[in-house]
């Protein structure tokens, strides 16, 4: 089941490989079908998921079953390393509350992404092959419970992303692409070392061999006391934690490792921005939750304050930078930096409210930001510019578009009744309830105001008031007396057309529904998060 959802895009990619590159429509349809099938599978998995099982650590008897669900555990590679015993790498995937939300999100966003890739005209075949590889890799990251497997998927993501930005991107794409690549690789190579170190420090309680299994690593008693990353080796444990954290923080991206994000977003084509903001950023925080924190709980406890500080910096710094942007897409990019800051803050709270909020924020940010980037893409397709100052008064001429933008913008600034609010609220509730991060939370709330400021300001400049003299569109008097808007060299529908609605409406419905009744998602999270908080709580630390 899970394997299917992971490898469906790969299959689609192979099919596309066989299709002659002239058959653009077929290629698109094939990938769309794959994405939809993924969606269906995601729904099935969601239906079959039992929210009672916590996950995070092994269930009774050290086996993942009874704790994780849809588990597939097949020995993949077994070597004899002589003195180090057999090297076991397993094809070990499964979901718990944390990953299943992300799985659903990924399926949703990649389907949306395929739809919005419809407008891609250049080298369609190559594009969709890479796109499908990317989709598969993302899904794989979220379901893999074996560190080695996770790492493989994690690295596989880089190359398609590099080409997708680099070939189909904007004018400055080379720079953005290589920057993205180098940054993320820099983060992940150290992860490789930590992974190896962990392998030599952890024993699988069942087989008694060294193992890459994240499930085994999440239990401190499985560590060899004097191993390189064992409980005794405090110094290296700290180093490993920091290294891993930076590796993930680059993906988040966390200040000061965020500078690749604005470039990447500005250059990337719309669907890739959607994927990037909708799913890829989540991988950073997901990695922290799945790997970084449970494996080094005591270090996590020690660094709560620092993480919180960085979260607050992200929130406010991102918001302020967004306030100063003239390029709409860059503004949205900085807004995601700001919103991911909420996730970090929630994690740093270290209590259930905060963590649930963080996870929920990940999900909501996925949907909302996808919406934002799609909307940016809509206007960019028409006007070929994203300069905020080059519009004005659009609301009179593109009412539907304006309505969607308004909802999306308000969702992004955390208006109650829309999903973003609940997650931010929970994050603050958690962060404030924990004594460590209380004062940080007090500062971070300023982000709420700045967030409202840049969003409302851009809304006003683009949609309200009158057309600006140097606007990127002209007004022509229609036959019915009213003025109509006209973009030069845009043949299509002025207001949102069917395809765009098909992308936006589902996201919007989800946003509103989850804003009114969050339990469908939260219900899956809570048990896992409570378990996680237990795992992380200082009381069960190994006696160093």
């Amino acid at each position: 089941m899970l394997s299917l959802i992971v490898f469906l895009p790969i299959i689609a990619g192979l099919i596309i490989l066989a299709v002659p590159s002239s058959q653009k429509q077929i290629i698109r349809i094939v990938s769309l079908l794959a994405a939809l099938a993924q969606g269906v599978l995601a729904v099935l998995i969601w239906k079959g998921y039992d929210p009672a099982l916590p996950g995070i650590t092994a269930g009774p008897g050290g086996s993942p079953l009874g704790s994780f669900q849809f588990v597939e555990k097949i020995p993949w590679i077994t070597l004899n390393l002589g003195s180090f015993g057999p090297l076991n790498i397993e094809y070990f995937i499964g979901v718990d509350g944390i990953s299943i939300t992300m799985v659903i999100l990924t399926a949703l966003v990649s389907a949306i992404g395929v739809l919005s890739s419809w407008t891609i005209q250049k080298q369609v075949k190559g594009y969709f092959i890479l796109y499908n590889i990317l989709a598969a890799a993302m899904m794989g990251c979220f379901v893999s419970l074996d560190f080695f497997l996770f790492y493989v998927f994690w690295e596989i993501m880089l190359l398609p992303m590099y080409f997708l930005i680099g070939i189909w991107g904007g004018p400055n794409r080379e720079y953005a692409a290589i920057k993205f690549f180098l940054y993320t690789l820099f983060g992940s190579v150290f992860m490789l070392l930590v992974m190896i170190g962990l392998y030599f420090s952890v024993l699988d309680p069942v087989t008694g061999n060294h193992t890459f299994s994240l499930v085994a690593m999440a239990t401190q008693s499985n560590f060899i006391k004097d191993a390189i990353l064992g409980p005794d080796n405090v110094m290296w444990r700290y180093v490993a934690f920091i290294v891993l954290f930076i590796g993930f923080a680059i993906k988040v991206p966390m200040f000061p490792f965020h500078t690749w994000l604005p470039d990447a977003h500005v250059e990337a084509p719309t669907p890739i921005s959607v994927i990037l903001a909708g799913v890829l950023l989540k991988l950073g925080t997901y990695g922290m939750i799945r790997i970084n924190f449970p494996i080094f709980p005591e270090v996590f406890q020690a660094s709560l304050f620092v993480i919180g500080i960085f979260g607050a910096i992200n929130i406010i710094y991102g918001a302020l930078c967004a306030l100063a942007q003239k390029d709409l897409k860059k503004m949205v990019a900085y807004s995601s930096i700001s919103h991911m800051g909420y996730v970090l803050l929630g994690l740093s709270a270290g209590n259930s409210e905060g963590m649930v909020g963080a996870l929920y924020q990940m999900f909501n940010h996925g949907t909302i930001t996808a919406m934002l980037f799609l909307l940016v893409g809509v206007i960019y397709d028409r006007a070929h510019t994203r300069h905020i100052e080059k519009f004005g008064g659009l609301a009179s001429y593109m009412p539907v578009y304006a309505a969607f933008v308004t909802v999306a913008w308000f969702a992004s600034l955390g208006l109650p009744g829309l999903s973003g609010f609940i997650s931010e609220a929970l994050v603050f509730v958690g962060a404030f309830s924990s004594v460590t991060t209380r004062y940080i939370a007090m500062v971070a709330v300023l982000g709420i105001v700045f967030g409202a400021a840049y969003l409302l300001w851009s809304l006003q400049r683009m949609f309200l008031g009158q057309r600006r003299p140097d606007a990127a569109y002209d007004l022509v008097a229609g036959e019915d007396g009213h003025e109509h808007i006209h973009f030069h060299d845009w043949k299509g529908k002025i207001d949102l057309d069917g395809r765009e609605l098909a992308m936006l409406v589902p996201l919007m419905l989800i946003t509103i529904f989850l804003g009114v009744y969050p339990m469908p998602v939260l219900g899956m999270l809570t048990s896992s998060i409570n378990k996680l908080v237990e795992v992380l709580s200082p009381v069960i630390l190994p006696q160093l």
Partner: protein
Amino acid sequence: MHSLIQLSIVVLLLPLLSFVILIFFNRRLPRRGDFVGVGILGTAFGISAYIFWQVIVQSYDPAFRVAWDFTWINLGNVPGVGPLQIRMGVVIDNLTSIMLAMVTLISLLVHLYSTGYMAGDKNYGRYFAFLGIFTFSMLGIVLSDNLFSIYIFWELVGLSSYLLIGFFFEKESAADAQKKAFLANRVGDIGMWLGILILYSQFHTFSFAEIYAKLAAGEFGLSNAWLTAAGILLFMGCVGKSAQFPLHIWLPDAMEGPTPVSALIHAATMVAAGVYFVARIFVLLTPDALHVIAFIGASTAFMAATIAITQNDIKRVLAYSTVSQLGYMVLGLGVGAYSAALFHLVTHAFFKACLFLGSGAIIHAMHHEQDMRWMGGLRKNMPWTFATFTLATLALAGLPLTSGFLSKDAILAGAIGFAQVEGGGIYYLIPVLGFFSAMLTAFYMGRQIWLVFFGESRTHLKPAETHHAAHHAHDSHDSHTDLHHAEHQVHEVSWNMRAPLVILAALSVFFVYSPDPLDGGKGWFMKMIPTPATVVGQANPQKGSLIAAATATQLAGAVPEAVVGHAAAGELPNAASSHGQATSAHTYSDLRQAEIVHAGHAAHYTAIYISSVMVLLGIGLALVVYVFNIIDPEKTALAIRPLYLFSLNKWYWDEIYQATFIKGSMVLATTLSWFDTHIVDGMVNGVATLVRKFAFFNDSFDRHVVDGAVNFTAFTVNTIGAMLRKLQTGKVQTYIVMLILAVFGYFVFYFTRLIY
């Protein structure tokens, strides 16, 4: 589930229904579906009236309270806390039922009125949809039984006011105003949110009842300073919504919205929500917090009044009077005159709505002329409007026989009592400011009445171009004005705009509230809304004094009401004996409140005298200036020009904020983004240029990769590379030299290491 609860939920959801219908289908419905809005609100009002009847008239119980809630978010079994849920629910008590009736009534009237006022607007249907969502959120605030849902609806009313202020979004001024309103409210909301967080972090619940119970039980883990902070922070929400100083700036600008909206949202209901909220949390406010509140209220009342006297825009005068009146209410709460403040909330809602709708009628009739200088002599053309407007004005000015007199007077009396109890001194500033503002109120309202209704029409005096501008500013939304625009003759508005005026005016007369035209305390309202017992007291509840304990037992049932028998009564016999009927029913759990209320009643008549004098002074002054022209306003203005300008420019608050916060944050933002692109992204700025010297291939790619973030590394790496590759001379003998050097070099190195 109690039947009233079911009804109230229906009331809550009906306006939402109207919103949904109208936002999606208004273009398909006849008359853009305005009848849907009016009809639904009519129903809602009917139901709320029934609830009002049930609660207030039928069952005469000051402690009436029914509540119902459900699990909204279930966080499961949280480590360290146990099972944790976030619950949502509604509560009905006397105050709620009164508010319900008031809100739905005014909303209904405004809907009705708007069918006339907004007729022909191109977004007519959307307008009613917005009114619907506003009413929904407002009722949500009224009914919420916990802080979280109040915060949610709090933001939602903010949204709807944002949408309605910016209803004519083609006007830049409107767009600015809506943004300003939303942001100012957000600032307030931050404080409120933090206050909520403080309470939650201690009790892991949002529900009023549970929080109060736990507070009274002394479970508040932090110091009392935190509690005071919580109170003040929560009050910040009110500061934002009720436009208290220093966040009052948004309300006058909010007049960019359609006038009925100003009446509904920015006069009667939403701005009053702040006061309502403070009343809800009244019991957890510590004395220090109350002092802050009182002072802010007083200063707001005074400042707004001083500004109002010089404004020329008819709506702006009313807006500032609204701010000022809200100041009164906050002041009232601050001094502990709980019932009086809420009483004033209700009365003010009616007469201020009446005033706004009246001004709307005038503006409508004057073809969107808003400047009082160009009005005048309207009483002949618009008798109905004149009559109702005048009545409401008298109520606002607080002349006897009006509702305004009763409530304002009670507040002032409370203020005096408060001052006495707190031991005079600086505290006397509060009543003094109150009375002075009363005079100013009377003055500027008199001025307004006179400028608008008396004398001769001054339309022709208006400079043409401004007139033109004013007209064009508005023609965006109104087509039929253009027809009438040709001839300038003013006439009375149609029935659907007249009826609301009459109703509201009728509700501004004293006997609606109290048999005694001079004492609201004798009226039903203040009997039904007694001052609840505080759950904090002056002393730290942890001390577990007799009183606190008693309170706790009382509050175990979460009844925000304290009938602490002999315990307290024994302590204050005089309080028990010499209260008027209003309070004879209850004695108070802590001395301070008791004394204040007692002193307030003692001060009742003094208050009446002083305030009447003040009001008469004010009106007299107005007459002197504007009727008998004994004092020429222009001359005076010139004589005290600095003061005049100060008032005319609203104490320069906008300019100050513009210069400090807005500029500040913009500068900060630009600086940071520069920092981002140049410093963070280029580690060291000079590096980039330095590196270009080393950059060998000169296409953009490398120049870029060489500056930029990853590229500090790239820089060092490249430079090293550039230096090392010099070794590759292409001469084989250099290579050999290198080889020999390497071998013998290491040998020497090893040798030296061997020696040392």
